[in-house]
């Protein structure tokens, strides 16, 4: 069965510093991978997705992620964070044969002034 592990529950980072949020997945078949963001008191919204093709995926708000099949990872990066990036970030996996998406536990990003 598919699963997602987000290694950090919280990540503090100074404003304008780079950040990496880590995500590892487990699946026995080919997968699609996603990062979603949840701002306070809102639903989740898509940041970026990997379906196929280039392993480096660019998303909204300057975020990007790299799919690494050998390490079963899909880490999210941003070169310079802004206070408005304060939110919870969810990594998610979907097996190619299924509509379901399995979400990780989330990583709370704290931006320090």
């Amino acid at each position, binding site marked *: 069965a598919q699963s997602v592990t987000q290694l950090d529950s919280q990540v503090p980072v100074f404003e304008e510093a780079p950040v990496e949020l880590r995500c590892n997945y487990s699946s026995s078949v080919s997968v*699609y991978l*996603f990062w*979603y963001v949840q701002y306070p*008191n*809102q*639903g*989740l*919204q*898509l940041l970026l*997705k990997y*379906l196929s093709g280039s392993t480096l995926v660019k998303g909204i708000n300057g975020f990007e992620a790299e799919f690494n099949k050998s390490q079963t990872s899909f880490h999210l990066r941003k070169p310079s964070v802004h206070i408005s990036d304060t939110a919870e970030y*969810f990594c998610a996996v*979907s097996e*190619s044969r299924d*509509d*379901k*998406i*399995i*979400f*990780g*536990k*989330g990583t709370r990003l704290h931006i320090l002034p």
Partner: protein
Amino acid sequence: DARVTQTPRHKVTEMGQEVTMRCQPILGHNTVFWYRQTMMQGLELLAYFRNRAPLDDSGMPKDRFSAEMPDATLATLKIQPSEPRDSAVYFCASGLGGQGRIQYFGAGTRLSVL
């Protein structure tokens, strides 16, 4: 700007009462998902539909929860009777399935069972 609409946004009820949450998916979307979010368990999939047919409700406590899609514009999640442990934020999401499979989330219903 198309969006998933959930009602009510907040619900406070007493233990034992029936709770009904509603979701209007984005027009044209053929998949609908219900999730529950808590601090302890994170985001859990309760049930999902494709073309209004229930495909998986294995994440849902069957004795008290039920999910239906009476038509393509409405999905409902009912809890009867409600219990304090049901307190959570319930999200509905819709999508096109297939390779696209991006899910679009509503703003959620925050349920408090006293």
